[in-house]
């Protein structure tokens, strides 16, 4: 029997590590690929959402009677159509969710908590009629004072969003409701003692603004519920099974009653891990008996889907004169949006994680405000806290006149280091990425006038989780793979490559597809950089099982013992005997009917052993001292991938993450007016980086294999968004000799600092 867990770290590889074309490439360049809003059904209705115009208000009454009688309106749903739930927290990947909150976020109940909060939805025969019907729904509100910033939300006299919110994690537990949902703390040692021993201490406060994932495809879905209660849902999501489970609970249907098919997905970055339109479309379809399609406009995506937190971050680091960190302390206050669940836990856990700490403490507060409920965004929480730590470290390096890479090397976490959040780290690539950065020609290139170079590192955990996939050997020798994790950026290619490597057959004979929720066991979503790691693990194992079966069939045909057969390069080979005897996969497959029937295998597991991925970025900026505009002149991203299955898509993750980080650092922010209305609800004024804003993003893939994966994969998607914030801020600070502690570094903010210090 092949060892299912054996790894290939030492084996010479033929496919893994190369750059073949992706299996879904042709569909994506011809317009054939179907995304969330690209599918239609006969007799379909259009669904539209009525949203709150107020940031905070009590709902006094909802009257839909006028809208109901409008010709062409087929169904209307409000909170009365959804069951209520008691408060209960369940993990959803890197975030925690609570059904009581989810049902209120998809459809407001007692109160509206942000501008854009859903209050009703309509399905009608046309878009125009649906829009008209929204205007006929009469809602009486009692407007309440609202609060947008964490520092205001914390005040004792702040308007309270949830009257039952008692801060968790504080002893004794408070008697009075507040906007602080919870307090978390991680760390070890004695920080006060550490600071007392320090030769130099730097303490700073930072501000970051709320930013959106900015996927180009708005949320969209198509639901069809038949008279017998069977529901079909097509939607753009990072996790079809997760959507199924949310929707089945929210609508009181069984898991077997809902089949979710994930469309091709036009970007997610964590934002498509929860439900918004899906339960509404299902409810509207159930009520009308007709298929219902719903799409968000771009403005709705900004106001009503989940961005990530804006935050206040306080960091204090003490070092010895040689640059060794003796103590690190931070307090993080993250906006949760209207419901608790800011990613402050992971933010606190990873704040100091790139370093080998002696005394460390990270405290985090999850604070509700009248903004849309945050959702995961690429390494949720990490970029914010690490931005603070990496900035202070840069300032310390300057003060000690130390090279910023040297100070990081001096403190770098390595195998055996106890992470600030508890566990002992396995092999990780912090030192390797720093060494690669130091050796890169970028690091020693000369700088021009008004230019500065910034360095920052980043740490992200990565996750495993529940995963299943299957493999079928077709009669003609081709191979099918059914995968349960959404392919968001080339994972079908990586899976086919691993199967091809194991089987020893060319990749173009292998067809990977993403299955619907009826075709496999539960798969947790694509997130936490887990797809290539976890689904890859199940693909390798099921492929090995299929190989065992192929060998058995060959043994039967040759009438020898199984142990007489080995698998080499896509063929069964008879070990004993004078003449070498082989049989190809295709020959065995053709005779499968005679030897026991179709050949297939599957693997289901709860994958553990994800390996953290470390990255270090180098950026050169140029500051226009007259306008305050910061330009990115040169950028190099270096990251430990463990093993890059398809290096082009690993580079793509690094480049895409870096540019999202550039947007976060330089431009992107939610801008609210004093009524709590978002003022920049389009791409024109919520400006994500465009092609002419950025240079080429140079990449270096470092490979320190993860021993827990057959090919050493770590997962690469999230780490690359962590270093840019601090790297750019450090570069601007070095270019101008002024420390910048606030993002985004947009021209007015930079100019103000240049003028007034």
């Amino acid at each position, binding site marked *: 029997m092949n060892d299912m867990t054996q790894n290939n770290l030492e084996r010479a590889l033929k496919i893994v590590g190369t750059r073949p074309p992706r299996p879904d490439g042709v569909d994506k*360049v011809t317009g054939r690929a179907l995304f969330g*809003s*690209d599918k239609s059904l006969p007799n379909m209705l259009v669904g539209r959402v009525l949203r709150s115009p107020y940031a905070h208000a009590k709902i006094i009454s909802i009257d839909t009677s006028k809208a109901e009688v409008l010709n062409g309106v087929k169904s209307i749903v409000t909170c009365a159509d959804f069951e209520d739930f008691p408060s209960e927290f369940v993990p959803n990947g890197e975030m925690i969710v609570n059904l009581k909150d989810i049902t209120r976020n998809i459809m407001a109940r007692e109160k509206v908590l942000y501008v854009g909060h859903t209050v009703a939805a309509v399905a009608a025969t046309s878009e125009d009629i649906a829009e008209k019907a929204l205007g006929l729904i009469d809602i009486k509100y009692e407007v309440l004072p609202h609060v947008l910033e964490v520092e205001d939300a914390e005040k004792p006299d702040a308007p309270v969003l949830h009257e039952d919110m008692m801060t968790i994690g504080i002893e004794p537990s408070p008697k009075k409701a507040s906007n602080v949902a919870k307090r978390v703390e991680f760390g070890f040692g004695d920080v006060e003692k550490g600071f007392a021993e320090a030769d130099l201490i730097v303490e700073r406060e930072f501000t970051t603004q709320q930013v959106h994932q900015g*996927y180009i495809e708005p949320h969209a879905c198509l639901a069809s519920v038949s008279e017998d209660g069977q529901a079909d849902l097509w939607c753009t999501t990072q996790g079809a099974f997760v959507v199924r489970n949310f929707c089945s609970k929210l609508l009181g249907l069984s898991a077997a009653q809902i089949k979710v098919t994930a469309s*091709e997905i036009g970007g997610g970055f964590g934002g498509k891990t929860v439900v918004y339109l899906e339960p509404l479309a299902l409810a509207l379809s159930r009520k009308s008996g007709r298929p219902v399609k719903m799409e968000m406009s771009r403005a709705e995506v900004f106001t009503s889907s989940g961005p990530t937190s804006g935050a206040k971050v306080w960091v204090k680091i003490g070092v010895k004169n040689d640059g060794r960190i003796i103590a690190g302390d931070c307090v993080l206050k993250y906006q949760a949006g209207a419901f608790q669940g800011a990613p402050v836990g992971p933010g606190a856990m990873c704040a100091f994680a790139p370093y080998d700490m002696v005394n460390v403490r990270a405290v985090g507060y999850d604070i509700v405000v009248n903004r849309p409920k945050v959702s995961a965004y690429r390494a949720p929480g990490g970029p914010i806290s690490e931005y603070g730590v990496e900035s202070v470290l840069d300032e310390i390096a300057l003060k000690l006149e130390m090279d910023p890479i040297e100070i990081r090397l001096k403190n770098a976490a390595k195998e055996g280091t106890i992470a600030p959040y508890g566990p002992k780290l396995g092999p990780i690539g912090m030192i390797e990425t720093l060494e690669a950065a130091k050796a890169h020609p970028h690091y020693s290139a000369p700088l021009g006038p008004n230019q500065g170079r910034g360095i920052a590192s980043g740490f992200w955990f990565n996750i495993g989780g529940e995963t299943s996939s299957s493999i079928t050997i077709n009669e003609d020798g081709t191979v099918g793979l059914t995968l349960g994790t959404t392919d968001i*950026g080339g994972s079908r290619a990586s899976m086919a490559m691993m199967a091809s490597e194991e089987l020893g057959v060319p990749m173009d004979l292998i067809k990977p597809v993403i299955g619907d929720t009826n075709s496999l066991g539960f798969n947790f979503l694509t997130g936490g950089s887990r797809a290539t790691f976890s689904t890859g693990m199940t693909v390798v194992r099921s492929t090995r099982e299929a190989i065992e079966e192929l060998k058995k069939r060959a043994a039967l045909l040759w009438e020898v013992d199984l142990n007489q057969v080995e698998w080499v390069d896509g063929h069964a080979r008879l070990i004993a005997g004078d003449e070498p005897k082989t049989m190809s996969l295709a020959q065995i497959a053709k005779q499968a009917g005679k030897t026991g029937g179709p050949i297939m295998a599957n693997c289901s597991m709860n994958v553990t052993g994800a390996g953290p991925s470390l990255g270090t970025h180098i950026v050169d900026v140029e500051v226009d001292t007259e306008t305050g505009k910061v330009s990115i002149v040169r950028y190099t991203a270096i990251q430990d991938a463990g093993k890059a299955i398809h290096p082009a898509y690993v580079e793509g993750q690094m480049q895409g993450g870096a540019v*999202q980080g550039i947007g976060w650092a330089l431009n992107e922010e939610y801008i609210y007016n004093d009524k709590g209305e978002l003022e920049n609800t389009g791409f024109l004024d919520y400006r*994500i980086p465009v092609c*002419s804003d950025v240079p080429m993003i140079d990449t270096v893939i470092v490979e320190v294999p993860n021993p827990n994966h057959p090919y050493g994969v770590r997962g690469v998607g999230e780490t690359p968004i962590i270093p840019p914030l601090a790297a750019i801020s450090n570069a601007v600070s070095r270019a101008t000799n002024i420390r910048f502690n606030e993002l985004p570094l947009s021209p007015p903010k930079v100019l103000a600092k240049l003028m007034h210090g």
Partner: protein
Amino acid sequence: MSKTHVSTCINGDTHEFLCDTQNTLLDVLRHELDLTGSKEGCATGDCGACSVMLDDRLVCACLVLGVEADGKEIETIEGMSSGSELHPIQQKFIDLAALQCGICTPGVLVATKALLTKNKNPSEEEVRFWLAGNLCRCTGYDKIVRAVLEVAADMRNA
């Protein structure tokens, strides 16, 4: 309100449709004609996912009214390949992994073809400014720009 009769030529084929005056060309393509290759990322002319050619001019289909297509020639992503042959730009994007999620890809490809028709030898800067109206949130643009520069060179040498 009565609908307007529009006759147009899309990817070389004659099409007739009825449309409300307020319907955009993008609505018509996607909803009336089932040509869903052109994508809607914003409907306000900011993302370029809906890029199409209208009488040899690169436009955002979300900013053109359906009735304006009357008597015009339209080219969409669906018309880029010929028979079973991909256009060299399409092939290059696959070869160089110049797409991740692929939602921006149709618009980027249409815009790229328009650029290379006008300018056979664009500089990196020209490519970046030409494509500045096509948002991509996944790739960081690096591989897109490389693909455009490389395919331009291939096409010059072909």
